[in-house]
């Protein structure tokens, strides 16, 4: 029971926003379809009847968002069941996740450019369902003759279920807990609790965004496209961080601009014993200095840490380890030549750091 409560609180505190960064593009995409429909269904010019203007209906976004989240909860509950039943074979390694993040980011950016009508080529960034599915939806869900007025609810359900393929780092940590139970029902309960905990943040951010923009019609759709574009860039950047690439935004800024010394910066004197504090909001210090040419011991210290920072990835060493919520985990780093910059990140590529090897 404790694990289920912890899973719910984790979702409530960190899961919602961290997963929104990756999955928000899918949510925005499903909302965009509904918004486009609502804009189309509104009269092209305000009609006047008996001297009074006909009020325009507000976008029906609460239902698609709720359906998206409902499908997400169901999908992750089923996943938790399978995890408890099948074990760790379902976990993707860091490299595959990085590829997935970058691919998703490219897809989101293409979709955003399609929504902005930049060029017809971007229409190919939309996945068209097979005809037998659309025909089934049209004839059973829509019903004959009512297709123009009934809202599309299959799209948010479908996209919500798809989020199970792109779990964020916090979700991965919960998946590991579900795996460890070895019990399909307990695994399902943990994933359901976590996803339910993350849902309020998802819903509030998404709903407020759409309602605030309901009066702007076409301009709001451009806003949604811009959000999807930014989320796509974030996803690509996270994928780059996960591979330790020097092309990520943070690493590029450190290359071209003088690094800022924070109050928690470590000494610049290289050492063979390092201490990395793993907090809920990242790694401290961001940059550690290690002795080149000899083995280095890095102690990863956690204290009440429940965010994805616990899932530490060091691509150069092929290390991906889930740290305990509280404790110290020693990580042995083999000798590295001077000048080596070894980057690390959380499993989602959001929190990053680096070890600089010098004499």
């Amino acid at each position: 029971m404790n694990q289920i409560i912890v899973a719910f609180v984790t979702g409530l505190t960190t899961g919602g926003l961290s997963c929104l960064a990756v999955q928000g593009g899918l949510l925005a995409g499903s909302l965009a379809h509904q918004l486009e429909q609502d804009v189309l269904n509104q009269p092209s010019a305000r009609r006047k009847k008996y001297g009074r203007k006909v009020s325009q209906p507000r976008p029906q976004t609460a239902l698609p968002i709720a359906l998206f989240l409902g499908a997400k909860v169901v999908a992750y509950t089923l996943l938790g069941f399978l995890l408890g039943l099948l074990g760790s074979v379902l976990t993707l390694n860091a490299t595959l996740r990085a590829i997935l993040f970058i691919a998703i980011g490219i897809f989101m950016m293409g979709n955003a450019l399609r929504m902005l009508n930049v060029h017809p080529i971007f229409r190919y960034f939309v996945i068209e369902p097979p005809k037998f599915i659309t025909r089934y939806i049209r004839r059973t869900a829509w019903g004959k003759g009512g297709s123009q007025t009934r809202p599309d609810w299959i799209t948010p359900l479908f996209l919500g279920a798809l989020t199970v393929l792109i779990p964020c780092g916090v979700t991965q940590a919960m998946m590991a807990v579900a795996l460890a139970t070895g019990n399909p029902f307990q695994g399902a309960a943990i994933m359901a609790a976590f996803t339910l905990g993350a849902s309020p943040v998802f819903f509030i951010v998404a709903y407020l965004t759409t309602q605030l923009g309901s009066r702007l019609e076409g301009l709001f759709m451009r806003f949604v496209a811009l959000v999807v574009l930014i989320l796509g860039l974030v996803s690509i950047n996270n994928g780059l961080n996960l591979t330790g690439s020097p092309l990520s935004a943070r690493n590029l800024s450190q290359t071209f601009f003088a690094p800022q010394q924070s109050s928690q910066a470590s000494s610049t004197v290289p050492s063979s014993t390092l201490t990395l504090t793993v907090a809920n909001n990242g790694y401290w210090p961001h940059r550690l200095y290690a002795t080149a040419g000899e083995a280095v011991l890095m102690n990863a210290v956690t204290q009440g840490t429940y965010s994805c920072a616990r899932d530490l990835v060091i691509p150069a060493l092929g290390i991906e380890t889930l740290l305990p919520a509280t404790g110290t985990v020693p990580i042995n780093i083999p000798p590295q030549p001077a000048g080596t910059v070894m980057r690390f990140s959380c499993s989602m590529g959001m929190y990053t750091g680096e070890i600089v090897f010098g004499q």
Partner: protein
Amino acid sequence: MVKKIFRVDDMHCPNCTMRVESIEDDLPGIKQVSASYQKGQMLVEYDETQVSEAQIIAAVKTRGYQAVLAVSS
């Protein structure tokens, strides 16, 4: 039965294809409509003795889109 391609350039999302394809439920003589948002067109297979091109174009217009005959196949 003939198959003809109609340009429908003002479809702006995959949902629009479902709207356009719904004419196959309403017009007798249409065997199948396959619309593509990506290509901006629809392929209609129909019985010329029961439904005409003009009726197909008019039915698409009631859905809010403009169809223009492209080529015959």
